[in-house]
């Protein structure tokens, strides 16, 4: 077990709602509709709910595994010993690092395509990196604060979902359940990728004040994410034709394009800019988790690892260019995330439960 986290650094249990939710809603929400419609077509909103339920189960597993002042690294140590556990922990850290790097690249790509085609990744990346450093340097309390404000402030974007309803074809959704279970599940798999990131829970768990109480808040967080995804899916489905949707790369941004207000004619520019605020919790929490992992395994100064990791993110971002390559990478990471969340964590859960049972019986 590591050094217990001092009480002044801990955050209230209900903030787990925002920690879980904010890291799930990120860059994927801007483009998931065209992926999810591929198999189940207009029934895919059911897949979104199924994916959400699967995430609920994994969250439940996480909370069952962890005890007071414990994180995934402690579990690794007890299960696999110091070295094998360390390697696994290292992989988890690297996973979060790559996740954050890809998130940033995907966001910068949107900026490049939609707003500033000439902007250099390095230039924009440096500004982002400084911002991330400033946040993470404030410690977990500030990261949690960013997660909170990064959820609450952009909430106004939910209202924008009402505008496209002017052009809604609700009969698109009918008839409900016109697809096979297999199609639904295939779409579900596509959808799970948009829920990733909540596994940071395994790392910040010791930073929660009354972790038992946080359990329900984590579930509420996932529920809120499901609500937002389902709402957005339905709006996208009634707004686009199926075939049209599959040709659009960023359907959510396409929805924003139709919004016209008396003082703002084209909302997507405001939406994309505001999205920086949604990306911020995503980036900072995953990077914080990655560096925290490094600290727990190698006992290195977290301030220094943050700088190193941020530089890695920056360099990785400048090296990956072009939509095709970015998509390929994002595909790899999604798959990696899928296996981590839906294969590795359940495996860990089962192994740990058996281990505890055996120990108890002894």
């Amino acid at each position, binding site marked *: 077990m590591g050094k217990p986290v001092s009480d002044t650094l801990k955050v209230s249990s209900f903030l787990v709602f925002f920690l879980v939710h904010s890291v799930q809603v990120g860059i994927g929400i801007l483009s998931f509709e065209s992926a999810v419609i591929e198999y189940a077509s207009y029934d895919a909103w059911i897949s979104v709910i199924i994916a959400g339920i699967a995430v609920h189960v994994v969250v439940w597993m996480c909370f069952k595994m962890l005890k007071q002042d414990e994180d995934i690294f402690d579990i690794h140590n007890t299960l696999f010993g110091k070295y094998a556990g360390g390697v696994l922990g290292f992989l988890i850290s690297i996973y979060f690092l790559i996740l954050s790097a890809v998130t940033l690249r995907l966001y910068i790509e949107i900026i490049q395509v939609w707003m500033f085609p000439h902007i250099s990744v390095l230039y924009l990346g440096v500004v982002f990196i400084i911002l991330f450093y400033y946040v993470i340097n404030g410690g977990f309390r500030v990261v949690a604060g960013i997660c909170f404000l990064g959820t609450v402030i952009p909430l106004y974007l939910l209202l924008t979902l009402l505008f496209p309803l002017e*052009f809604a074809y609700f009969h698109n959704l009918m008839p409900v359940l016109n697809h096979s279970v297999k199609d639904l599940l295939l779409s579900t798999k596509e959808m799970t990728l948009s829920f990733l990131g909540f596994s940071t829970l395994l790392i910040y768990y010791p930073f929660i004040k009354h972790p038992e109480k946080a359990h329900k808040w984590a579930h509420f967080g996932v529920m809120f994410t499901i609500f937002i995804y389902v709402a957005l899916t339905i709006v996208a489905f009634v707004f686009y034709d199926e075939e049209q949707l599959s040709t659009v790369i960023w359907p959510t941004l396409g929805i924003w394009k139709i919004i016209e207000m008396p003082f703002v004619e084209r909302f997507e520019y405001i939406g994309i800019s505001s999205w920086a605020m949604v990306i911020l919790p995503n980036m900072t929490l995953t990077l914080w988790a990655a560096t925290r992992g490094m600290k727990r395994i190698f006992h290195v100064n977290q301030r220094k690892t943050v700088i190193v990791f941020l530089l890695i993110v920056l360099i990785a971002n400048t090296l990956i260019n072009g939509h095709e390559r970015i998509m390929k990478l994002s595909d790899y990471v999604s798959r990696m995330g899928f296996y981590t969340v839906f294969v590795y964590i359940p495996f860990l859960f089962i192994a740990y439960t058996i281990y505890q049972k055996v120990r108890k019986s002894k």
Partner: protein
Amino acid sequence: MRALALGIVLSTVVLLTAGCGIERQIVDDISLVTAVGYDPAEGNKIQGTIAVPNFQAEGTVMTEIFSDTAMLMRENSAKLNTEANRPLATGKLEVILFNQELAKEGIQKLKDVFVRDPSIGSRARLAITEGPTQEVLTRQYWDNDAGMYLSDMLEQNIDRGTIPETNLHLFVYALYSKGADPYLPYLSVEDMVSIDGIALLDHDRYVGKIPYEQTYTFNSLVGDFQNATFPIHRGDKKSATVSNISSDRTIQFKGSGKNMELIIDVKQKGILREYRGGKITKKVLKNIEESMEKQMKKQAKDILKKLKELNIDPLALGNEYHSEHRNFSWKEWEKMYPELKFTPKIDVKIMEYGIRR
């Protein structure tokens, strides 16, 4: 120390701006293209014409027109850029016009440039013109810019129910949709540029139009609208004009297979705006309602017949059918459509008749 480091980092960032700055589009240093029109030109080329407003200090607007021919649309805009004093910017594009001759060959390939470019709004309006678009754009619209004028013209006519709502997004939606075909406003160029009906498209090809007289009925078949005016011609003494407060359309499919009957039920509420026959009584109102129903029904039948003949589905009946039937295949629908039996049902209620009897 740290402050110094931060200072260095920040100053490098600012310095970097000079090198890899973002393209600035200062609003008064660009030419805002508000309207664009395409006409056929010789040898598989297209002639593109753009209208750029030039705002004068005293509040009037001059329209600058640039026109050139090219094979591709972007090639065309690059060519046009060589004529302009400020870089052309398409972000404020309001109106996209196609010559009907060009539209007959299909506009699918032409629309690509508009849906690929993120700067073009989804609310841009498309229209098909009777004559050359160049003529539409070069017209003088008093103190207004051609693009803005046309955009306002289309918009207010949509609000007034002359034509159903159309814009780039809806056009693309209908284009992709298997169970619907797009339609666009049809502009005629005579003494004035005016909306002269609705252009019907088979997928992306212009195939025919609904004349202006029938737009009211077409509108009521397409969906809900209000505020439009319908003249009832019954000889000099009894003619009347009615404008509608509401119009509800419901679609019902009856029967199955080859005997499928499609009932389009239109329920309208209206206000009597004009009546030549003197005092209005209950009987007169009833009479007016009935003759309006009769006239609309006749028009509806004409329209539906035309749609069937052209084998197009601007009313999105395919989508409607799809949403109500499981185990549905588009092939079956395509076979079914030309043999469908349409039954329009029109019900008009006049609620008010102004401030005198």
